[in-house]
């Protein structure tokens, strides 16, 4: 279904171009955890100084978080704190955050990275154990509560984690690493419940 949606969208943009999301539709269920590829989303990498945050937050419709390891979500758009002046914006409704940033005159740098990343959802009671198989961070609810977001390492790949619920993670990795990350999480999933 994700694939079909992406195709329709790409076809609308240009009839000769077909967009093929990496690993579309792949999913794995194991006792206590489910790993699946999420549909394509619009993403930007945003760098901005403190003085521009108010204007950018207004244009994007979501308040950019300034506290480390946090995120903010509004109307299907999530802003993840990655560094003191760096955010990852993910829009799952198909609206382009890049276009919203283009209207802002305050100093900032916004780069479209929609198709650089692939998102994988890890859900279920042992989701944290599954992600922890490759990620050395403390993912207990006290240290990594719902809404927490962090760039970190997952096996040999860099990844951005977002905890969407107590038992659900969104793992964002680079497209070329997605096969590795998905396989790693799948292997971990079959072990996690034990």
């Amino acid at each position, binding site marked *: 279904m994700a694939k079909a949606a992406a195709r329709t969208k790409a076809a609308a943009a240009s009839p000769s171009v077909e967009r093929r999301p990496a690993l579309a539709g792949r999913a794995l269920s194991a006792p206590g955890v489910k790993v699946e590829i999420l549909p394509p989303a619009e993403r930007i990498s945003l760098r901005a100084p403190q003085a521009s945050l108010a204007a950018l937050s207004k244009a994007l419709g979501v308040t950019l978080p300034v506290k*480390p*390891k946090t995120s903010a979500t509004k109307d299907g758009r999530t802003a993840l704190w*990655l*560094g*003191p002046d*760096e955010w990852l914006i993910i829009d799952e409704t198909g609206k382009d955050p890049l276009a919203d940033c283009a209207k802002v005159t305050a100093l900032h740098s916004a780069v479209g990275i929609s198709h650089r990343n692939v998102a994988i959802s890890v859900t279920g009671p042992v989701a944290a154990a599954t992600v922890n198989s490759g990620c*050395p*961070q403390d993912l207990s609810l006290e240290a990594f509560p719902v809404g927490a977001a*962090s*760039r*970190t*390492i997952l096996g040999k790949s*860099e990844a951005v984690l977002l905890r969407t619920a107590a038992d659900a993670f969104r793992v964002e990795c680079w497209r070329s690493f997605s096969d590795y990350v998905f396989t790693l999480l799948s292997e971990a999933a079959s072990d996690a419940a034990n």
Partner: protein
Amino acid sequence: MLLIRCPYCEEERPELEFRNAGEAHIARSANIDAESDDDFEKFFFIRANPKGVIYERWRHIHGCARFFNAVRDTVTDKFVMTYKAGEPKPAKLPGASK
């Protein structure tokens, strides 16, 4: 695994997220043309390499991607403290006797 406190993330993170970036507080001359060869050699190649407390640059490369400074003991591998890049060398180290 070592836990290193990132002064930007304001918490301890596993060492796998970090990368060492050499000795800290090495100032580049404002007028590098005027440097003598000896001075340039000292600036470019010569490092303290002490046995004991060392001031280093570290980068939270798989995290906030920021460079910061750390005080580490090369004998015990213990991190004494970390502080943001650009801040002066701490006058007094926590736990130091003098």
